[in-house]
């Protein structure tokens, strides 16, 4: 983030402005990725008119950065109508797509409409790996072709490389591919639970040894010793810091109008079909609760050595059952990075360790009685 953008975000925070919003236009998708957290059925998406009304409300509320995502945004037949309307309202538009439906004509139209950037998911440089994750044969080839069309129009393209067990060995290849096709590259080693709470896909998360190798890879992290250094002890400033921008300057709206602090934070704050966007932003009790939380209020994290440097996601913590609790996925990353277990991991280890066996010596006076058992006291035995 540029210095000026950081300054504007801070000003938005002071003014209480929703500076950045992600709007998912649909959960329908033409890929069936193994790690996807969404239900792809259409349960009643907002209509074109509803979305236009929402966009107008968002512009009036001061939203500047609008990320249009899904599902697959090009599954909506009215996608360009929505985009054109949004650009007329002078949003800074970022798109997230798998791009398999983008050809030369679509790329040219995106250029004409002044889209700021397009993030495209690429899982591997090897078709057999990428296509196995998307479950669509030929999807890698089509996504790469789309990137070339977009770059030919001068558009900014970001290759988004989500890492999981299936493609953990391929991130060097994906970055090289991004360089070859003149796209930027970003990497995310986090698989999140499904929005309905199903946690089964978390098994796809990279293991500790893979994360450790990634975090020591100087081609990605720079100086590995600095990146993996033990964290400084949290000070007063970090104790008073905000967990992240969710609910403070950013929020998320689903295709059904549900308003959440973030796409990864499924705490319903209202529905834009029933209430004006700005009313939810200003008055939602749930958002007020999210905004009140500081590091010092977090049950485990406020006591943790990683408090000042952890990438704790409050949404993942919420999905674990407590928005003031730890996000174990981030604890695991902090541990893989530094080798220092978080307070949460230590507590889990303590809880999971087998109870201490009490070993009781046979006392001569009561020979013949053999005792073994669990508990902390056996002093009464044989008394």
């Amino acid at each position: 983030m540029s210095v000026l953008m950081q300054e504007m975000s801070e000003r938005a925070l002071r003014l209480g402005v929703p500076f950045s919003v992600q709007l998912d236009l649909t959960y329908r998708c033409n890929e069936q990725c193994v790690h996807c957290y969404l239900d792809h059925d259409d349960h009643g998406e907002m209509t074109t008119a509803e979305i236009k009304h929402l966009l107008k409300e968002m512009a009036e509320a001061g939203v500047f950065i609008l990320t249009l995502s899904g599902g697959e945004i090009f599954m909506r037949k009215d996608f360009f109508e929505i985009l054109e309307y949004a650009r007329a309202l002078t949003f800074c538009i970022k798109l997230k797509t798998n791009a398999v439906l983008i050809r030369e004509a679509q790329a040219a139209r995106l250029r004409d409409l002044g889209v700021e950037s397009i993030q495209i998911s690429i899982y591997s440089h090897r078709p057999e790996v990428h296509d196995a994750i998307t479950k669509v044969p030929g999807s890698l080839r089509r996504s790469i072709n789309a990137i070339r069309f977009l770059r030919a129009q001068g558009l900014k393209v970001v290759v988004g490389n989500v890492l999981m067990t299936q493609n953990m060995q391929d991130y060097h290849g994906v970055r090289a591919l991004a360089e070859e096709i003149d796209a930027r590259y970003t990497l995310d080693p986090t698989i999140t639970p499904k929005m309905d709470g199903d946690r089964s896909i978390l098994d796809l998360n990279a293991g500790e040894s893979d994360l450790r190798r990634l975090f020591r890879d100087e081609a990605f992290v720079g100086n590995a010793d600095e990146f993996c250094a033990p964290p400084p002890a949290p000070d007063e400033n970090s104790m008073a810091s905000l967990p992240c921008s969710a609910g403070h300057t950013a929020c998320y709206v689903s295709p059904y109008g549900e308003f959440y602090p973030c796409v990864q934070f499924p705490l319903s704050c209202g529905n834009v079909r029933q209430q004006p966007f700005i009313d939810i932003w200003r008055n939602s009790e749930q958002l007020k609760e999210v905004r009140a939380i500081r590091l010092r209020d977090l049950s485990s994290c406020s006591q943790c050595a990683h408090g000042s440097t952890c990438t704790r996601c409050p949404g993942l913590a919420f999905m674990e059952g407590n928005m003031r609790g730890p996000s174990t996925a981030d604890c695991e990353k902090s541990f893989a990075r530094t080798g220092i277990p978080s307070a949460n991991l230590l507590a889990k280890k303590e809880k999971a360790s087998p109870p201490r066996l009490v070993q009781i010596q046979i006392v001569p006076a009561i020979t013949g009685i053999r005792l073994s058992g669990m508990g902390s006291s056996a002093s009464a035995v044989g008394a």
Partner: protein
Amino acid sequence: MTKKLYVARSPRIAARMLGEEMLVMSGQGSTLFTLNPTATILWQAADGATPLDEIVERRICSEFEVKPEDAIRDAEALAEDLAKHGILLISEEPIARPDAPVQESR
């Protein structure tokens, strides 16, 4: 100034008022700018149909204590600068359709 100048907001920018300032992102390289109140007035009034000198007379001279000739000179310089960054379009003819091909900087 011998010829009228017309200015229009570029259709390729993103913009929003944030507090007292206009935040503008140019389509050229995603560069971010903030416009001060005077530049914001000029940018907001840049409809492609109203000549720059009229914008200055109606919107700037009426609000700020400034000589019209100084204001027009400053406004031209500002318009040139905004045009160089792709924020504003400048033409010697009215700009009926902001997306029509026009001179982006002189």
